[in-house]
Protein backbone atom coordinates (compact mmCIF):
# COMPACT_ATOMS: atom_id res chain seq x y z
CA UNK A 1 0.00 0.00 0.00
CA UNK A 2 1.33 3.44 -0.96
CA UNK A 3 1.70 5.70 2.05
CA UNK A 4 1.17 8.89 0.07
CA UNK A 5 -1.09 8.10 -2.84
CA UNK A 6 -1.84 11.72 -3.75
CA UNK A 7 1.63 13.23 -3.40
CA UNK A 8 1.42 15.01 -6.75
CA UNK A 9 -1.44 17.29 -5.66
CA UNK A 10 0.49 18.74 -2.74
CA UNK A 11 1.64 21.64 -4.86
CA UNK A 12 -1.94 22.82 -5.20
CA UNK A 13 -2.68 22.73 -1.46
CA UNK A 14 -1.57 25.47 0.88
CA UNK A 15 -0.89 22.87 3.57
CA UNK A 16 0.23 19.27 3.67
CA UNK A 17 -2.67 16.90 3.24
CA UNK A 18 -3.26 14.91 6.41
CA UNK A 19 -4.18 11.38 5.46
CA UNK A 20 -3.64 9.91 8.90
CA UNK A 21 -7.34 9.15 9.52
CA UNK A 22 -7.66 7.47 6.12
CA UNK A 23 -4.64 5.31 6.91
CA UNK A 24 -5.84 4.52 10.41
CA UNK A 25 -9.18 3.24 9.09
CA UNK A 26 -7.36 1.34 6.35
CA UNK A 27 -5.16 -0.39 8.91
CA UNK A 28 -8.18 -1.40 10.97
CA UNK A 29 -9.98 -2.87 7.95
CA UNK A 30 -9.82 -6.59 7.16
CA UNK A 31 -7.82 -7.53 4.08
CA UNK A 32 -6.28 -4.76 1.96
CA UNK A 33 -8.92 -2.00 2.22
CA UNK A 34 -7.92 -0.06 -0.96
CA UNK A 35 -9.68 2.90 0.68
CA UNK A 36 -7.13 5.34 -0.73
CA UNK A 37 -8.14 4.22 -4.24
CA UNK A 38 -11.70 5.66 -3.92
CA UNK A 39 -12.37 7.93 -6.91
CA UNK A 40 -15.62 9.36 -5.51
CA UNK A 41 -17.76 7.91 -8.31
CA UNK A 42 -20.75 7.27 -6.01
CA UNK A 43 -21.48 3.73 -7.22
CA UNK A 44 -21.61 2.66 -3.56
CA UNK A 45 -24.39 5.00 -2.47
CA UNK A 46 -26.25 4.42 -5.73
CA UNK A 47 -26.24 0.66 -5.08
CA UNK A 48 -27.14 0.83 -1.40
CA UNK A 49 -30.57 -0.55 -0.37
CA UNK A 50 -30.56 1.33 2.95
CA UNK A 51 -29.03 4.60 1.74
CA UNK A 52 -32.40 6.28 2.39
CA UNK A 53 -31.79 6.05 6.14
CA UNK A 54 -28.11 7.07 6.12
CA UNK A 55 -27.02 10.58 7.09
CA UNK A 56 -24.08 10.36 4.66
CA UNK A 57 -23.66 8.13 1.61
CA UNK A 58 -20.59 5.87 1.73
CA UNK A 59 -18.97 8.11 -0.91
CA UNK A 60 -19.37 11.20 1.30
CA UNK A 61 -18.12 9.27 4.31
CA UNK A 62 -14.95 8.25 2.46
CA UNK A 63 -14.37 11.88 1.42
CA UNK A 64 -14.75 12.84 5.07
CA UNK A 65 -12.10 10.30 6.06
CA UNK A 66 -9.74 11.73 3.47
CA UNK A 67 -10.45 15.22 4.82
CA UNK A 68 -9.60 14.06 8.34
CA UNK A 69 -13.09 14.78 9.71
CA UNK A 70 -12.74 12.30 12.55
CA UNK A 71 -15.59 13.41 14.79
CA UNK A 72 -18.16 13.69 11.99
CA UNK A 73 -17.14 10.42 10.35
CA UNK A 74 -17.28 8.39 13.57
CA UNK A 75 -20.58 9.95 14.59
CA UNK A 76 -22.19 9.13 11.22
CA UNK A 77 -25.02 6.57 11.35
CA UNK A 78 -23.92 5.16 7.96
CA UNK A 79 -21.87 2.17 9.20
CA UNK A 80 -24.72 1.21 11.54
CA UNK A 81 -27.30 1.37 8.74
CA UNK A 82 -25.11 -0.70 6.39
CA UNK A 83 -26.90 -4.05 5.97
CA UNK A 84 -23.78 -5.96 4.77
CA UNK A 85 -25.31 -6.90 1.41
CA UNK A 86 -22.07 -6.27 -0.55
CA UNK A 87 -23.92 -4.64 -3.46
CA UNK A 88 -21.51 -1.70 -3.34
CA UNK A 89 -18.49 -4.00 -3.08
CA UNK A 90 -19.18 -5.88 -6.31
CA UNK A 91 -19.97 -2.64 -8.16
CA UNK A 92 -17.03 -0.56 -6.88
CA UNK A 93 -14.72 0.03 -9.87
CA UNK A 94 -11.76 0.39 -7.49
CA UNK A 95 -12.38 -2.78 -5.46
CA UNK A 96 -12.57 -0.91 -2.17
CA UNK A 97 -13.56 -3.28 0.69
CA UNK A 98 -16.50 -1.00 1.48
CA UNK A 99 -18.46 -3.31 3.82
CA UNK A 100 -15.32 -4.09 5.80
CA UNK A 101 -14.47 -0.39 6.05
CA UNK A 102 -17.92 0.04 7.65
CA UNK A 103 -17.04 -2.67 10.20
CA UNK A 104 -13.75 -0.88 10.97
CA UNK A 105 -15.60 2.41 11.49
CA UNK A 106 -18.07 0.72 13.84
CA UNK A 107 -15.31 -0.68 15.99
CA UNK A 108 -13.56 2.72 16.11
CA UNK A 109 -16.84 4.43 17.08
CA UNK A 110 -17.40 1.89 19.86
CA UNK A 111 -13.83 2.27 21.11
CA UNK A 112 -14.15 6.05 21.26
CA UNK A 113 -17.81 6.01 22.34
CA UNK A 114 -18.76 8.12 19.31
CA UNK A 115 -22.37 7.31 18.57
CA UNK A 116 -25.66 9.13 18.91
CA UNK A 117 -27.68 6.06 19.86
CA UNK A 118 -26.30 3.12 21.78
CA UNK A 119 -28.86 0.56 20.60
CA UNK A 120 -26.89 -0.84 17.65
CA UNK A 121 -23.46 -0.89 19.36
CA UNK A 122 -25.06 -2.53 22.41
CA UNK A 123 -26.64 -5.19 20.24
CA UNK A 124 -23.26 -6.11 18.72
CA UNK A 125 -21.59 -6.11 22.11
CA UNK A 126 -24.27 -8.32 23.68
CA UNK A 127 -24.00 -10.74 20.75
CA UNK A 128 -20.24 -10.92 21.21
CA UNK A 129 -20.61 -11.39 24.97
CA UNK A 130 -22.90 -14.38 24.41
CA UNK A 131 -20.51 -15.93 21.88
CA UNK A 132 -17.58 -15.43 24.25
CA UNK A 133 -19.55 -17.05 27.06
CA UNK A 134 -21.03 -20.05 25.24
CA UNK A 135 -19.13 -20.36 21.94
CA UNK A 136 -22.40 -20.23 20.04
CA UNK A 137 -24.95 -17.51 19.53
CA UNK A 138 -27.90 -17.51 21.91
CA UNK A 139 -30.82 -15.80 20.24
CA UNK A 140 -33.32 -16.02 23.07
CA UNK A 141 -30.92 -14.46 25.58
CA UNK A 142 -29.75 -11.86 23.09
CA UNK A 143 -33.23 -10.74 22.05
CA UNK A 144 -34.67 -10.59 25.57
CA UNK A 145 -31.68 -8.71 26.96
CA UNK A 146 -31.60 -6.29 24.05
CA UNK A 147 -35.34 -5.60 24.10
CA UNK A 148 -35.42 -5.20 27.88
CA UNK A 149 -32.73 -2.55 27.72
CA UNK A 150 -33.74 -0.66 24.57
CA UNK A 151 -37.38 -1.30 23.77
CA UNK A 152 -39.36 -3.09 26.50
CA UNK A 153 -42.59 -2.08 24.77
CA UNK A 154 -41.55 -3.82 21.59
CA UNK A 155 -40.83 -6.96 23.57
CA UNK A 156 -44.42 -7.04 24.76
CA UNK A 157 -45.65 -6.49 21.20
CA UNK A 158 -43.47 -9.22 19.74
CA UNK A 159 -44.24 -11.68 22.55
CA UNK A 160 -46.84 -13.48 20.41
CA UNK A 161 -44.35 -14.03 17.61
CA UNK A 162 -41.71 -15.19 20.09
CA UNK A 163 -44.16 -17.65 21.61
CA UNK A 164 -45.01 -18.94 18.14
CA UNK A 165 -41.31 -19.45 17.38
CA UNK A 166 -40.96 -21.26 20.71
CA UNK A 167 -43.95 -23.53 20.03
CA UNK A 168 -42.57 -24.40 16.62
CA UNK A 169 -39.22 -25.38 18.09
CA UNK A 170 -37.40 -22.44 16.55
CA UNK A 171 -36.20 -20.75 19.72
CA UNK A 172 -34.00 -22.47 22.28
CA UNK A 173 -34.61 -21.35 25.85
CA UNK A 174 -31.19 -22.57 26.92
CA UNK A 175 -27.85 -21.72 25.30
CA UNK A 176 -25.64 -24.39 23.74
CA UNK A 177 -22.12 -24.37 25.14
CA UNK A 178 -19.22 -25.80 23.17
CA UNK A 179 -16.86 -28.33 24.78
CA UNK A 180 -13.71 -26.37 23.99
CA UNK A 181 -14.66 -23.14 25.79
CA UNK A 182 -11.22 -22.96 27.47
CA UNK A 183 -9.52 -23.31 24.12
CA UNK A 184 -11.73 -20.65 22.51
CA UNK A 185 -11.20 -18.28 25.44
CA UNK A 186 -7.42 -18.73 25.24
CA UNK A 187 -7.52 -17.96 21.49
CA UNK A 188 -9.71 -14.88 21.92
CA UNK A 189 -7.64 -13.54 24.84
CA UNK A 190 -4.46 -13.85 22.80
CA UNK A 191 -6.22 -12.20 19.82
CA UNK A 192 -7.37 -9.29 22.00
CA UNK A 193 -3.82 -8.79 23.23
CA UNK A 194 -2.70 -8.35 19.64
CA UNK A 195 -5.69 -6.28 18.52
CA UNK A 196 -4.18 -2.89 19.21
CA UNK A 197 -0.93 -3.62 17.42
CA UNK A 198 -2.42 -4.74 14.11
CA UNK A 199 -0.67 -3.49 10.97
Amino acid at each position, binding site marked *: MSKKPVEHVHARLDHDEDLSLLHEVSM*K*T*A*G*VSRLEMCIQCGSCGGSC*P*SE*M*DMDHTPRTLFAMLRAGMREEALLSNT*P*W*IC*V*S*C*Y*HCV*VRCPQNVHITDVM*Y*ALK*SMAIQEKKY*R*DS*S*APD*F*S*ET*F*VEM*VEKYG*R*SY*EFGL*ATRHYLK*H*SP*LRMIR*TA*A*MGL*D*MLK*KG*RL*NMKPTTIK*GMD*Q*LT*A*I*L*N*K*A*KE*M*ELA*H*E
Partner: protein
Amino acid sequence: MSDYIFYPGCAMESNAKAYYDSLMEIAQPLGINLQEIDDWNCCGATEYVGINLIPAYSLIARNLALAAKTGQKTVLSSCSACYLNLAKADYYMAERPALGKKVNEALAAGNLQYTPGSLDIRHLLDVLINDIGLDTLKAKVVRPLKGLRVAPYTGCMVPRPDYNKRWSDPEHPTELIDVLKAIGAEVVDFPGGTTCCGGHMTQIGPDTAYELIRRLISSAEKSKADIMVTVCPMCQLNVDAYQGETNSHYGTDYEMPIVFFSQLVGLALGFPPEKLGFGSEITSTAKALSRIGMDIPEAALAEGKQHQQEGLPMPPCMRKTAKTPEYKRPCAEEVKA
Protein backbone atom coordinates in the same frame (compact mmCIF):
# COMPACT_ATOMS: atom_id res chain seq x y z
CA MET B 1 -20.98 -40.36 -2.25
CA SER B 2 -19.08 -37.08 -2.04
CA ASP B 3 -17.58 -36.29 1.38
CA TYR B 4 -17.81 -32.88 3.03
CA ILE B 5 -16.87 -31.38 6.37
CA PHE B 6 -20.11 -29.76 7.49
CA TYR B 7 -20.30 -26.39 9.25
CA PRO B 8 -23.99 -25.93 10.20
CA GLY B 9 -23.82 -22.64 12.10
CA CYS B 10 -25.94 -21.56 15.07
CA ALA B 11 -29.17 -20.76 13.18
CA MET B 12 -29.47 -24.36 11.96
CA GLU B 13 -29.85 -25.42 15.61
CA SER B 14 -32.64 -22.97 16.38
CA ASN B 15 -34.63 -20.72 14.06
CA ALA B 16 -33.63 -22.55 10.84
CA LYS B 17 -34.29 -26.09 12.08
CA ALA B 18 -36.42 -26.73 9.02
CA TYR B 19 -33.33 -26.11 6.87
CA TYR B 20 -31.27 -28.55 8.96
CA ASP B 21 -33.95 -31.24 9.01
CA SER B 22 -34.63 -31.07 5.28
CA LEU B 23 -30.91 -31.08 4.45
CA MET B 24 -30.41 -34.19 6.59
CA GLU B 25 -33.23 -35.92 4.65
CA ILE B 26 -32.08 -35.05 1.12
CA ALA B 27 -28.33 -35.50 1.68
CA GLN B 28 -28.36 -39.30 1.54
CA PRO B 29 -30.36 -39.80 -1.69
CA LEU B 30 -28.34 -37.06 -3.39
CA GLY B 31 -25.04 -38.64 -2.37
CA ILE B 32 -23.88 -35.86 -0.03
CA ASN B 33 -21.96 -37.32 2.92
CA LEU B 34 -21.73 -34.80 5.76
CA GLN B 35 -19.27 -35.03 8.62
CA GLU B 36 -19.98 -32.22 11.10
CA ILE B 37 -16.96 -30.27 12.40
CA ASP B 38 -16.49 -31.47 15.97
CA ASP B 39 -17.21 -28.70 18.48
CA TRP B 40 -17.52 -25.89 15.94
CA ASN B 41 -18.18 -22.38 17.29
CA CYS B 42 -20.24 -19.40 16.09
CA CYS B 43 -18.81 -17.52 13.09
CA GLY B 44 -19.63 -14.16 14.70
CA ALA B 45 -22.30 -13.31 12.11
CA THR B 46 -22.07 -9.63 11.12
CA GLU B 47 -21.60 -8.56 14.74
CA TYR B 48 -18.14 -9.61 15.91
CA VAL B 49 -16.32 -8.00 12.97
CA GLY B 50 -17.80 -4.66 13.99
CA ILE B 51 -16.17 -4.86 17.42
CA ASN B 52 -12.68 -6.34 17.23
CA LEU B 53 -10.85 -7.37 14.07
CA ILE B 54 -8.25 -9.93 15.20
CA PRO B 55 -10.55 -11.71 17.69
CA ALA B 56 -13.33 -11.82 15.05
CA TYR B 57 -11.07 -13.49 12.50
CA SER B 58 -9.58 -15.82 15.14
CA LEU B 59 -13.11 -16.89 16.08
CA ILE B 60 -13.85 -17.83 12.47
CA ALA B 61 -10.43 -19.41 11.97
CA ARG B 62 -10.88 -21.82 14.91
CA ASN B 63 -13.52 -23.53 12.75
CA LEU B 64 -11.22 -23.60 9.73
CA ALA B 65 -8.42 -25.08 11.85
CA LEU B 66 -10.74 -27.76 13.28
CA ALA B 67 -11.99 -28.56 9.77
CA ALA B 68 -8.45 -28.81 8.36
CA LYS B 69 -7.53 -31.23 11.16
CA THR B 70 -9.97 -33.80 9.77
CA GLY B 71 -7.83 -34.18 6.66
CA GLN B 72 -10.80 -33.52 4.36
CA LYS B 73 -10.45 -30.62 1.94
CA THR B 74 -13.98 -29.41 1.28
CA VAL B 75 -16.06 -27.51 3.84
CA LEU B 76 -19.79 -27.29 3.20
CA SER B 77 -21.89 -24.57 4.79
CA SER B 78 -25.62 -24.12 4.33
CA CYS B 79 -25.96 -20.70 5.99
CA SER B 80 -25.16 -17.72 3.79
CA ALA B 81 -23.52 -15.63 6.51
CA CYS B 82 -21.43 -18.55 7.80
CA TYR B 83 -20.37 -19.43 4.26
CA LEU B 84 -19.30 -15.85 3.57
CA ASN B 85 -17.47 -15.49 6.89
CA LEU B 86 -15.48 -18.71 6.40
CA ALA B 87 -14.65 -17.88 2.77
CA LYS B 88 -13.77 -14.29 3.62
CA ALA B 89 -11.49 -15.19 6.52
CA ASP B 90 -9.66 -17.68 4.33
CA TYR B 91 -9.29 -15.06 1.58
CA TYR B 92 -8.27 -12.09 3.76
CA MET B 93 -5.74 -14.10 5.79
CA ALA B 94 -3.94 -14.74 2.50
CA GLU B 95 -4.52 -11.28 1.04
CA ARG B 96 -3.03 -9.61 4.10
CA PRO B 97 -0.35 -11.89 5.55
CA ALA B 98 -0.03 -9.70 8.68
CA LEU B 99 -3.63 -10.66 9.51
CA GLY B 100 -2.98 -14.33 8.76
CA LYS B 101 0.09 -14.30 10.98
CA LYS B 102 -1.71 -12.72 13.94
CA VAL B 103 -4.70 -15.03 13.65
CA ASN B 104 -2.33 -17.98 13.69
CA GLU B 105 -0.55 -16.62 16.77
CA ALA B 106 -3.95 -16.48 18.48
CA LEU B 107 -4.86 -19.99 17.30
CA ALA B 108 -1.55 -21.24 18.69
CA ALA B 109 -2.80 -20.29 22.18
CA GLY B 110 -5.37 -23.07 21.64
CA ASN B 111 -2.88 -25.45 20.00
CA LEU B 112 -4.39 -24.91 16.56
CA GLN B 113 -3.16 -23.49 13.28
CA TYR B 114 -4.57 -22.84 9.83
CA THR B 115 -2.84 -22.33 6.48
CA PRO B 116 -4.91 -19.91 4.37
CA GLY B 117 -6.05 -21.46 1.11
CA SER B 118 -5.79 -25.05 2.33
CA LEU B 119 -9.56 -25.63 2.37
CA ASP B 120 -12.21 -25.35 -0.32
CA ILE B 121 -15.18 -23.50 1.23
CA ARG B 122 -18.48 -24.14 -0.49
CA HIS B 123 -22.17 -23.39 -0.10
CA LEU B 124 -24.77 -26.17 -0.28
CA LEU B 125 -26.35 -24.64 -3.42
CA ASP B 126 -23.00 -24.66 -5.24
CA VAL B 127 -22.35 -28.26 -4.16
CA LEU B 128 -25.78 -29.35 -5.37
CA ILE B 129 -25.24 -27.76 -8.80
CA ASN B 130 -21.56 -28.40 -9.42
CA ASP B 131 -20.73 -31.61 -7.52
CA ILE B 132 -23.99 -33.55 -7.52
CA GLY B 133 -25.34 -32.05 -10.74
CA LEU B 134 -28.76 -31.12 -12.06
CA ASP B 135 -29.06 -34.38 -14.04
CA THR B 136 -28.66 -36.48 -10.88
CA LEU B 137 -31.17 -34.25 -9.10
CA LYS B 138 -33.69 -34.54 -11.96
CA ALA B 139 -33.29 -38.32 -12.04
CA LYS B 140 -34.26 -38.52 -8.34
CA VAL B 141 -37.42 -36.41 -8.67
CA VAL B 142 -40.52 -38.53 -8.07
CA ARG B 143 -42.98 -35.69 -7.46
CA PRO B 144 -42.31 -32.70 -9.73
CA LEU B 145 -43.64 -29.48 -8.19
CA LYS B 146 -45.65 -28.66 -11.30
CA GLY B 147 -47.86 -25.59 -11.03
CA LEU B 148 -46.15 -24.08 -7.98
CA ARG B 149 -45.07 -20.52 -8.80
CA VAL B 150 -41.84 -19.85 -6.94
CA ALA B 151 -39.87 -16.61 -6.40
CA PRO B 152 -36.17 -17.56 -6.25
CA TYR B 153 -34.60 -15.56 -3.40
CA THR B 154 -30.85 -16.15 -3.30
CA GLY B 155 -30.12 -13.16 -1.03
CA CYS B 156 -26.89 -11.22 -0.61
CA MET B 157 -24.14 -13.23 0.97
CA VAL B 158 -24.01 -16.30 -1.22
CA PRO B 159 -23.22 -14.72 -4.61
CA ARG B 160 -21.43 -11.67 -3.16
CA PRO B 161 -18.55 -10.86 -3.07
CA ASP B 162 -17.73 -14.36 -4.42
CA TYR B 163 -14.14 -14.73 -3.16
CA ASN B 164 -13.79 -18.19 -4.70
CA LYS B 165 -15.30 -17.30 -8.10
CA ARG B 166 -18.01 -19.94 -7.89
CA TRP B 167 -21.16 -18.09 -8.89
CA SER B 168 -22.66 -17.22 -12.27
CA ASP B 169 -23.36 -13.56 -11.41
CA PRO B 170 -23.12 -11.44 -8.24
CA GLU B 171 -26.47 -9.75 -8.85
CA HIS B 172 -28.46 -12.12 -11.05
CA PRO B 173 -27.24 -15.62 -10.25
CA THR B 174 -29.02 -18.48 -12.03
CA GLU B 175 -28.12 -21.35 -9.65
CA LEU B 176 -31.25 -21.32 -7.50
CA ILE B 177 -33.45 -20.88 -10.59
CA ASP B 178 -31.82 -23.94 -12.17
CA VAL B 179 -32.43 -26.10 -9.10
CA LEU B 180 -36.07 -25.02 -8.83
CA LYS B 181 -36.65 -25.73 -12.53
CA ALA B 182 -35.01 -29.14 -12.14
CA ILE B 183 -37.58 -30.09 -9.49
CA GLY B 184 -40.40 -29.01 -11.79
CA ALA B 185 -41.43 -25.75 -10.13
CA GLU B 186 -42.54 -22.75 -12.17
CA VAL B 187 -39.97 -20.01 -11.53
CA VAL B 188 -41.46 -16.50 -11.73
CA ASP B 189 -39.56 -13.44 -12.88
CA PHE B 190 -38.53 -12.03 -9.49
CA PRO B 191 -36.43 -8.85 -9.59
CA GLY B 192 -35.68 -9.01 -5.85
CA GLY B 193 -33.56 -12.16 -6.13
CA THR B 194 -30.44 -10.78 -4.42
CA THR B 195 -31.71 -7.70 -2.62
CA CYS B 196 -31.28 -7.49 1.13
CA CYS B 197 -33.84 -8.75 3.69
CA GLY B 198 -32.59 -6.21 6.26
CA GLY B 199 -30.23 -8.56 8.10
CA HIS B 200 -29.91 -7.59 11.76
CA MET B 201 -31.82 -4.31 11.23
CA THR B 202 -34.99 -6.02 12.49
CA GLN B 203 -33.34 -5.73 15.94
CA ILE B 204 -31.64 -2.34 15.81
CA GLY B 205 -33.40 -0.26 13.13
CA PRO B 206 -36.80 -1.84 12.47
CA ASP B 207 -37.94 0.97 10.13
CA THR B 208 -35.13 0.14 7.71
CA ALA B 209 -35.87 -3.59 7.97
CA TYR B 210 -39.62 -3.22 7.41
CA GLU B 211 -39.02 -1.28 4.20
CA LEU B 212 -36.57 -3.87 2.82
CA ILE B 213 -38.93 -6.73 3.74
CA ARG B 214 -41.87 -4.85 2.20
CA ARG B 215 -40.01 -4.37 -1.09
CA LEU B 216 -39.19 -8.08 -1.29
CA ILE B 217 -42.70 -9.32 -0.54
CA SER B 218 -44.34 -6.72 -2.75
CA SER B 219 -42.02 -7.73 -5.60
CA ALA B 220 -42.85 -11.42 -5.10
CA GLU B 221 -46.57 -10.59 -5.04
CA LYS B 222 -46.31 -8.57 -8.25
CA SER B 223 -44.54 -11.55 -9.83
CA LYS B 224 -47.59 -13.62 -8.83
CA ALA B 225 -45.49 -16.03 -6.80
CA ASP B 226 -47.22 -18.56 -4.51
CA ILE B 227 -44.14 -18.87 -2.36
CA MET B 228 -40.62 -17.47 -1.93
CA VAL B 229 -37.65 -19.81 -1.66
CA THR B 230 -34.39 -19.00 0.08
CA VAL B 231 -30.97 -20.51 0.83
CA CYS B 232 -30.38 -18.37 3.95
CA PRO B 233 -31.60 -18.67 7.59
CA MET B 234 -31.57 -14.89 8.09
CA CYS B 235 -33.64 -14.24 4.94
CA GLN B 236 -36.19 -16.87 5.97
CA LEU B 237 -36.45 -15.48 9.51
CA ASN B 238 -36.87 -11.87 8.40
CA VAL B 239 -39.39 -12.41 5.62
CA ASP B 240 -41.34 -15.09 7.52
CA ALA B 241 -41.36 -14.09 11.19
CA TYR B 242 -41.23 -10.30 10.69
CA GLN B 243 -43.89 -10.27 7.96
CA GLY B 244 -46.57 -9.63 10.59
CA GLU B 245 -44.70 -6.62 12.01
CA THR B 246 -44.12 -5.32 8.48
CA ASN B 247 -47.83 -5.65 7.76
CA SER B 248 -48.77 -3.71 10.91
CA HIS B 249 -46.20 -1.05 10.12
CA TYR B 250 -47.55 -0.38 6.63
CA GLY B 251 -51.15 -1.52 7.08
CA THR B 252 -50.67 -4.17 4.39
CA ASP B 253 -52.00 -7.73 4.45
CA TYR B 254 -49.25 -9.73 2.80
CA GLU B 255 -49.28 -13.49 3.31
CA MET B 256 -46.21 -14.59 1.38
CA PRO B 257 -44.74 -17.85 2.69
CA ILE B 258 -40.98 -18.40 2.47
CA VAL B 259 -39.22 -21.76 2.83
CA PHE B 260 -35.74 -23.19 2.31
CA PHE B 261 -34.88 -24.64 -1.10
CA SER B 262 -33.92 -27.92 0.56
CA GLN B 263 -37.53 -28.26 1.79
CA LEU B 264 -38.88 -28.05 -1.78
CA VAL B 265 -36.16 -30.38 -3.07
CA GLY B 266 -37.23 -32.82 -0.33
CA LEU B 267 -40.86 -32.65 -1.45
CA ALA B 268 -39.82 -33.34 -5.06
CA LEU B 269 -37.73 -36.32 -3.89
CA GLY B 270 -40.87 -37.76 -2.28
CA PHE B 271 -40.32 -37.03 1.42
CA PRO B 272 -43.44 -36.20 3.47
CA PRO B 273 -43.71 -32.50 4.47
CA GLU B 274 -43.49 -33.17 8.20
CA LYS B 275 -40.01 -34.69 7.79
CA LEU B 276 -38.87 -31.52 6.00
CA GLY B 277 -39.76 -29.03 8.71
CA PHE B 278 -42.96 -27.75 7.07
CA GLY B 279 -45.36 -26.31 9.62
CA SER B 280 -42.61 -24.51 11.53
CA GLU B 281 -43.02 -21.35 9.46
CA ILE B 282 -44.88 -18.36 10.92
CA THR B 283 -46.48 -17.35 7.61
CA SER B 284 -48.42 -20.44 6.56
CA THR B 285 -47.38 -22.44 3.49
CA ALA B 286 -50.64 -24.40 3.48
CA LYS B 287 -52.34 -22.43 0.71
CA ALA B 288 -49.29 -22.42 -1.56
CA LEU B 289 -48.63 -26.12 -1.22
CA SER B 290 -52.26 -27.08 -1.66
CA ARG B 291 -51.65 -25.99 -5.26
CA ILE B 292 -49.51 -29.10 -5.72
CA GLY B 293 -51.87 -31.31 -3.77
CA MET B 294 -49.83 -31.27 -0.56
CA ASP B 295 -51.42 -31.13 2.86
CA ILE B 296 -49.24 -29.06 5.17
CA PRO B 297 -49.79 -28.71 8.92
CA GLU B 298 -51.49 -25.34 9.27
CA ALA B 299 -49.20 -22.77 10.83
CA ALA B 300 -50.65 -20.03 12.96
CA LEU B 301 -50.32 -16.59 11.45
CA ALA B 302 -48.43 -14.03 13.46
CA GLU B 303 -50.75 -11.70 15.29
CA GLY B 304 -50.84 -8.13 14.01
CA LYS B 305 -48.49 -5.85 15.89
CA GLN B 306 -48.69 -2.17 16.59
CA HIS B 307 -46.51 0.41 14.95
CA GLN B 308 -43.56 1.44 17.10
CA GLN B 309 -40.77 3.98 17.08
CA GLU B 310 -37.43 2.85 18.39
CA GLY B 311 -33.98 2.02 17.19
CA LEU B 312 -31.50 4.27 15.41
CA PRO B 313 -32.52 7.85 14.67
CA MET B 314 -33.76 7.95 11.08
CA PRO B 315 -34.53 10.72 8.65
CA PRO B 316 -38.30 11.03 8.07
CA CYS B 317 -39.94 8.95 5.38
CA MET B 318 -40.24 10.47 1.94
CA ARG B 319 -43.53 11.98 0.79
CA LYS B 320 -44.11 11.13 -2.82
CA THR B 321 -43.67 14.27 -4.92
CA ALA B 322 -42.52 14.88 -8.48
CA LYS B 323 -38.98 15.08 -7.12
CA THR B 324 -38.87 12.03 -4.84
CA PRO B 325 -38.37 8.84 -6.79
CA GLU B 326 -40.36 5.78 -5.77
CA TYR B 327 -37.44 3.78 -4.44
CA LYS B 328 -37.01 6.05 -1.42
CA ARG B 329 -38.61 4.83 1.79
CA PRO B 330 -42.29 5.72 1.40
CA CYS B 331 -44.56 6.75 4.24
CA ALA B 332 -46.81 4.07 5.71
CA GLU B 333 -50.06 5.67 4.62
CA GLU B 334 -48.86 5.89 1.01
CA VAL B 335 -48.11 2.19 0.90
CA LYS B 336 -51.51 1.44 2.33
CA ALA B 337 -53.19 3.62 -0.27
